[in-house]
């Protein structure tokens, strides 16, 4: 098989605390310390001068909509968006049609994903039909290949069922990813409850509804020892609860999205549905707390919650538009802007949050440049400013609040298992 030399890049691998200019070697789809003379002769060389060379990005929270909602996205188009954004490993949520609560749907996704340009891992449902009433067959789902369990988009409301779910899933070593929302407190809610929802006359979603479930999950994790991962934390109080839980050694992790660190509820002033998501954008205090949580390790990683919706679905009255935005193609520049430029994080810290730390939560074989590891690489120019235009981008949907904005930091090349899959604006 072929060999690859990536020359003269700033090689950043938080897993091995490496951050210096040098070369990276790949042979037979894996990283190697060096190439043999014979390999060197035939190796392809990529000049990475001026670029950052880091592990392929990892996103444990994406919606690829296949099967059943392929007018929004497919596993192929979603994977292409991932590759264009520097992501080489993604974890798909199971709220497709049908939902992933059975082994045959897992098999279908895996068969399509086998031809995708990036590593695509499925998750399975916690409950049958994501209805929150009965346990889905976690064992069969795992045998079929899911890497975690979640009812994302919905939150298991019954404490008893959640208790049994984490206990049962633990037997298989499967993590539970929970969308933290007490639904009784958020009926018909479309944005954060507060001064902005009051002014706009929109039904408010109080952060307390998230905090209550985060607290419940911490209690259940502590009680059972099972791992529970809190998806897209949006509230300052939830960050505080997580900080204390980690101090107490509870087996919980959490993620933050690029949009929750970039925007607040103030963005909703003109009822723009590209700022409608669940959990909703909250206040500046919440936004700052999430950034502080990422800084001190209270929050473990970045997850995009890439949620494609067709234009006609988003283009309507605010109350009736679906939640969510796409994020794979913008996550890196947005995190570079908010975390590195504006919040003074080290670049390697942000890469860690988007690679190794994300992979570690679900023990995925990704997130490092260490010899022997699968050769997934992201090469990006941290200084290049470019115009993001959803038309001509790779996701099938265009529901992005960053559409037609200049972003700084551009992915140049994405390598999956030693093969270049994306280069200079084109899929390879």
């Amino acid at each position, binding site marked *: 098989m072929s060999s690859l030399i990536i020359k003269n890049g700033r090689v950043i691998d938080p897993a091995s605390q490496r951050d210096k200019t040098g070369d990276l070697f790949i042979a037979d789809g894996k990283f190697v310390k060096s190439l043999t003379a014979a390999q060197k002769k035939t190796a392809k060389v990529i000049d990475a001068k001026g670029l950052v060379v880091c592990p392929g990005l990892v996103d444990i929270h994406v919606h690829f909509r296949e099967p059943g909602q392929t007018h929004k996205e497919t596993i192929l188009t979603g994977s292409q968006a991932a590759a264009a954004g520097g992501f080489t490993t993604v974890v798909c949520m199971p709220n497709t049609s049908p939902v992933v609560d059975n082994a045959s749907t897992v098999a279908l996704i895996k068969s399509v994903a086998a031809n995708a340009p990036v590593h695509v891992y499925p998750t399975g449902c916690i409950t049958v039909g994501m209805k929150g009433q009965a346990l889905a067959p976690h064992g069969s789902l795992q045998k079929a290949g899911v890497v975690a369990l979640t009812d994302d988009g919905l939150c298991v409301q019954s404490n008893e069922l959640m208790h049994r779910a984490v206990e049962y899933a633990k037997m298989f070593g499967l993590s539970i990813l929970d969308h933290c929302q007490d639904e009784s407190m958020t009926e018909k809610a479309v944005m954060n*409850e*507060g*001064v902005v*929802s*009051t*002014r*706009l*006359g*929109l*039904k408010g979603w109080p952060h307390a509804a998230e905090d209550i479930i985060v607290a419940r999950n911490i209690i259940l994790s502590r009680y059972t020892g099972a791992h529970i991962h809190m998806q897209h934390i949006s509230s300052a109080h939830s960050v505080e609860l997580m900080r204390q839980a980690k101090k107490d050694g509870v087996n919980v992790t959490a993620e933050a999205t690029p949009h929750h660190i970039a925007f607040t509820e103030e963005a909703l002033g*003109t*009822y723009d549905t590209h700022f409608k998501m669940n959990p909703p954008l909250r206040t500046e205090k919440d936004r700052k707390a999430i950034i502080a949580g990422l800084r001190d390790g209270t929050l473990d990683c970045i997850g995009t919650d890439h949620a494609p919706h067709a234009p*006609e679905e988003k*283009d*309507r*009255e*605010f*109350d*009736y538009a679906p939640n969510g935005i796409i994020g794979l193609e913008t996550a890196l520049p947005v995190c570079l802007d908010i975390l590195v430029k504006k919040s003074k994080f080290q670049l390697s810290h942000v890469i860690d949050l988007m690679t190794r730390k994300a992979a570690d939560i679900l023990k995925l074989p990704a997130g490092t440049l260490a010899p022997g590891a699968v050769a997934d690489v992201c090469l990006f120019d941290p200084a290049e400013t470019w115009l993001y235009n959803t038309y001509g981008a790779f996701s099938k949907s265009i529901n992005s609040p960053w559409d037609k904005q200049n972003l700084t930091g551009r992915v140049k090349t994405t390598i999956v298992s030693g093969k270049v899959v994306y280069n200079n604006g084109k899929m390879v």
Partner: protein
Amino acid sequence: MPWHRKHLLTIEELKRSEIEQILATAGAFRRILDRKVKKVPALRGKTIVNLFLEPSTRTRISFEMAAKLLSADVISFDAAASSTTKGETLRDTAQNIQALHADMIVLRHAASGSPLYLSKVLGIPVVNAGDGAHEHPTQALLDVFTMREKLGDLKGRKVVILGDILFSRVARSNIHALTKLGADVTIVGPSTLVPHWFESMGVRVSHNLREALADADVVMLLRIQHERQGSSHFPSLGEYTSMFGLNYTRASWVKPGAIIMHPGPINRGVEIDSDIADSDRSVILQQVTNGIAVRMAVLYLCAGGQPEHVLTPVE
């Protein structure tokens, strides 16, 4: 100063001077309403479509009356009969109406922000006739018009808005209009329906009726919706009435000469007792009449009319 707005979407976006312009224009039309022949040719040849996607009687009839008195042709469109029930989107419905050569759309919609959305999609003027819990600008304009008629300048006047503020577009539009005109606004009712968030809109929040009503120049009641009863917002209409209903005793706590208002439809015996609703302090029916004049002014101005053309004394 010429009028330059094409749409009337919110009171929040209006400058005080614009509110004054509408009120002055409405004043001229109000005088016309007292004439034998009330019709004026201002909008002759124009077609106005009332797109009412949420039930309404009073507001729709008032807009129809206003349009007819301006000699416009009016088509009223109600949700049950429309293709929105067949799944047509608001954008498509409205674009079709525009393609039918309507000159203006008056929109009533259950979703907050939909008039703003429509104004971005269409080339013709959009007038907001109530959007969700957001705004009901013509109601607030007719309310302040009526207050000024009774009390003169509203600067420093104490206005109490009492009832279900949380879900009320009337309250929000009135808060904006009254604060812009310098009135001192207090909102009162149960804490679940009058949350503290409203303080950010420049009003005082109170749950003590006696304290709030003391020295009030205006008491504006809002309809208590039956469907909220027994939900988490309040226990029963009976309890609401016992705590916040305006009865004879409580009405005596206000300033002599104070007026009592209600946007209708009223629930007699719930938020207001009949003897108060029918008393000479009540201006409820004057509000309704003034509503026609205010809506005539809004339709006239949004269709491109200028205040000075009607402000010159008639006859």
